[in-house]
């Protein structure tokens, strides 16, 4: 009966926002009649004439337009065709959207949707995970939903809050992940910025987000045969980051592995480890570990790609090492 995909949840959240809030419009490349490169806006242009607008290939100006519209009271959603292309709109995101409220007191409620992460064969320029780059800048909220339900409720939440939100939706989950139904309102979901215990356990904590939550859960299942009970924390939102839930989990397990699909250097995993090391050093029974992508551009060939990013089996290996430390 599982019928609603992660991608459909994103489409439905946008449909609902367009229906309920006249301030919402969507702007992006090929999103109008064509329905978007991934069909995240399929039929929305027809259902909401004039509010789902095709943009020229101008990521900088797309974000600039959203910022200007937000200043005048709109709630724009910008669809980047791929997260990777958001670098062409980087200046507007980090220098204008992120600074606007601090500088002027005027909020900047925009959502920039980034189809993120790797899929087989996508290569260096259609596979990136950009969350750490944007999380670095004060003023930006960075969401990384891992479930169909979160993709739906968190996108609605992203549209409703007064801050600019970088919404990292994972392309690998678009079609693979399904749910039977969606929550009727964001209020049914966890509070904004709160991490979720995706799997309770007692022997070690894996902190993950986005697609890596599912690799972590699979690894945790694998370790059941070894007699271990692994807790998995899904960050949901990487900025703000829910340090309290992470520390509480580490307090229960004493061991920490952070898994991220992005590169390790200066990333979300590093941040989590830094926080646990400085705020919860006494909770640790072993040095905290991280597992990230390999330090090269994301490779094209599926055989290389499958090894480049963390997988259930590489997470399980890291866990076994952590449990022996």
């Amino acid at each position, binding site marked *: 009966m599982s019928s609603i995909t992660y991608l459909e949840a994103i489409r439905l959240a946008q449909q609902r926002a367009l229906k309920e809030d006249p301030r919402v419009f969507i702007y992006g490349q090929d999103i109008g009649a064509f329905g978007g490169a991934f069909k995240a806006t399929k039929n929305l242009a027809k259902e909401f004439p004039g509010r789902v607008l095709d943009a020229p290939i101008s990521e900088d*100006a797309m974000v600039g337009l959203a910022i200007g519209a937000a200043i005048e009271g709109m709630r724009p959603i910008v669809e980047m065709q791929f997260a990777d292309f958001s670098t062409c709109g980087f200046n507007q995101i980090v220098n204008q959207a992120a600074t606007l409220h601090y500088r002027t007191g005027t*909020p900047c409620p925009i959502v920039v949707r980034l189809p993120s992460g790797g899929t087989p064969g996508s290569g260096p320029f259609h596979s990136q995970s950009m969350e750490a780059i944007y999380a670095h800048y004060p003023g930006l909220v960075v969401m990384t939903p891992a479930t169909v339900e979160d993709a739906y409720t968190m996108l609605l939440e992203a549209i409703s809050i007064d801050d600019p939100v970088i919404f990292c939706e994972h392309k690998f989950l678009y079609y693979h992940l399904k749910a039977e139904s969606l929550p009727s309102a964001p209020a049914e979901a966890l509070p904004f910025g709160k991490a979720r215990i995706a799997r309770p356990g007692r022997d070690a904590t894996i902190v993950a987000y986005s697609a890596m939550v599912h690799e972590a859960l699979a690894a945790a299942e694998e370790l059941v045969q070894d007699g271990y009970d692994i807790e998995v924390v899904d960050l949901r939102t990487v900025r703000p980051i829910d340090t309290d839930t992470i520390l509480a989990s580490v307090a229960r397990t004493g061991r920490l592995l952070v898994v991220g699909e992005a590169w390790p250097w200066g990333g979300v995993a590093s941040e989590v480890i830094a926080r646990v090391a400085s705020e919860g050093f006494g909770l640790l029974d072993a040095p905290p570990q991280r597992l990230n992508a390999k330090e090269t551009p994301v490779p094209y060939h599926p055989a290389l790609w499958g090894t480049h990013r963390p997988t259930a089996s590489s997470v399980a290996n890291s866990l076994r090492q952590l449990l022996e430390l």
Partner: protein
Amino acid sequence: MTKANSTKSKGSETKSSEESSTARVNRELSRRAYRTMLEARLLEEKLAALYRSGKIVGGVFLGRGQEALSVALGVHLRRGDIYAPLIRDQAGRLAFGDTILDTLRTYLGSSLGSMRGRDGNIHRGRPSEGYHAMISHLGAMVSTVCGSLVAKRFHGEKSAVGATCIGEGGTSTGSFHEGMNMAAIENLPLVVVVANNQYSYSTPNERQFACSDLLARAAGYGVSGHRAVGNDLVDCLGVIGKAVATARRGEGPQLVVADLLRLVGHGEHDDASYIPEVMKKSPLGRDCLELARQSLIAQEWLSDDEADSWHKAVEKEVEETASKVLREPAPDPSEEDWNAFASPSLGRNL
């Protein structure tokens, strides 16, 4: 595309016709514009003095020589319009509704200023009132103004215009290009004024662009183009007035290009020694404020006595305002919330 054809026909109108412009510019507008230019000039001279005496930190970036062009845009905008000025637009800012008081507060870092010490100098604005606060990255404001105009279109506000200013150097950015192209696609009521002051900081135009005339770019974008004489107030008022009116009528984006010379360095730290004397002595280097005064007096729209009394009154206002602001409190780091988020709930858990 009809757009390209109409651009061609509009292109033929770009030769500024002094007769028709002069005829259309009314006395009161010119007087108001001149008075505002005077305020900008004297205020900026005070800013330079405060910078030299160490009272202003960071930088001071002046619009000396560009007041006519700047004010001509500001006076043609009205409440409900969108305005994103750039660094040499003190005159346009004052005409749009910014004040001597808030300028001084922002430069001097008063906690009572609109930027509260969080940003300074020319990076000021009140976006919620249609007065955008520029970022330093050139070209970025073009698409931002487009966005505000798209919002106004959604709101059903038909008569609003958006305007922004840039230098010839800023037209080399990808951001400027993307913004112009987008404005044309959406047929937005956008006016972009390019102050071609011959030098982008120290870089001369031959190292900035290779086309013979920046105005030719209007046709490339599919927008209307207008040329103004940058240091001639009456011409600027006429040309920009027409551009703003055309945009307001719904006839799409308008690009205005004006040649002029800045009569100061890029900032007060810069002596502009790279600008050759011969250029400074050319018609381009004539001071727009002095020319405007002569022109208004010649038209009998202003008398020498009145001009002198305005000068004294503005000087007094600037001095008194500066003295007041110098006594105002600086921002207190211990009272800052150090929170960049607007949503109150996000302040604590970062």
